[in-house]
């Protein structure tokens, strides 16, 4: 009878502390995890916003150069002068020996590049990016065909500085 009275009723001493430690641990782990994932997501969103902004700035600059070339041509400037002024390459039809030149009559092709900077804004009017600028990872390559009908855009493409590398890790099934 005495033994029954001495038994503690309900929770023992220390059990509350153990439950609390477990609860606090859960709360801390989950809150830190949620904060870390939210911050990573925010960094991703900022990167997306920055790349979108940079792309449209480069696109806008490429369009400005295209419009300037068109205006200068209509004003009577020579293609070589214009190409030099805007840092573009100009190849006459005789210099080009591709499929396009064989199938169509034109005077020449203007080509230029505008860097898409991923960091702070800064555009290069010519040259495939810059070696000293680490922020530049891609560029917009433009080709304009100059013919009797005026300027025609034949290439307006975003290209990566490192080029395209195919992923050969996965073995594909050869279906024939």
């Amino acid at each position, binding site marked *: 009878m005495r033994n029954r009275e001495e038994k503690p009723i309900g929770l023992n001493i220390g059990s509350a502390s153990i439950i*609390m430690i477990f609860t606090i641990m859960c709360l801390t782990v989950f809150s830190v995890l949620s904060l870390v994932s939210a911050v990573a997501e*925010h960094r991703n*969103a*900022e990167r997306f916003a920055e790349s979108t902004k940079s792309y449209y700035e480069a696109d806008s600059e490429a369009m*400005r150069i295209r419009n*300037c070339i*068109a205006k200068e041509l209509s004003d009577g400037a020579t293609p070589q002068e214009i190409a030099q002024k805007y840092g573009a390459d100009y190849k006459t039809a005789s210099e080009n020996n591709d499929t396009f030149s064989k199938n169509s009559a034109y005077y020449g092709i203007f080509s230029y590049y505008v860097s898409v900077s991923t960091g702070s804004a800064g555009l290069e009017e010519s040259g495939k990016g810059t070696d000293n600028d680490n922020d530049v990872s891609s560029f917009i390559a433009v080709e304009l065909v100059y013919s009797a009908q005026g300027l025609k855009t034949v290439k307006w493409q975003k290209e990566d500085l490192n080029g395209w590398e195919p992923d050969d890790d996965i073995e594909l099934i050869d279906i024939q």
Partner: protein
Amino acid sequence: MTRHNSRSGLFLMEIMAVILFFSICAAICVSVFAKASSVADKSAELNTAAARSVNIAEIYKSAGGNIKETAHMLGDASGDELTSVKNYEETQNAAAGETQLEKMEAIYKDMTVVLEKKSDGAALISVFDTEYTEYSRYDGYTETQKDESSDEIFTMSVREKEGAL
């Protein structure tokens, strides 16, 4: 009996310490959760703002830099999330004899996208966080009013296809 009382007292002391410590830790953790939620909301807002800006930029380019046409196309293309499209600051083009729009506002439920032509021929797209304040009218109805002091979320420039210099 004395031993039982001392155990109860000890347990009470422990419970009090646990509650105190737990409330401090819970307050810190809840604030971390709140911060995470706020950061997640901001990133979702930024993503949406960038996506909507791209949408309007592409419509603007395909409309040849015509803001009136952009507003029409945007109104047709957008779903329920777009509340209204406002065009204003019209300028009269004397040579062509037509009215040209210089600015438009696309008002979404959670943000406002402003498309504005600049002097250099490019257009600036700015996205603002739209906040509405509810107020009660004299007849008992509640109305919402757009808060003018909205924060800018995102901004970018775009140039129309083959047109202005």
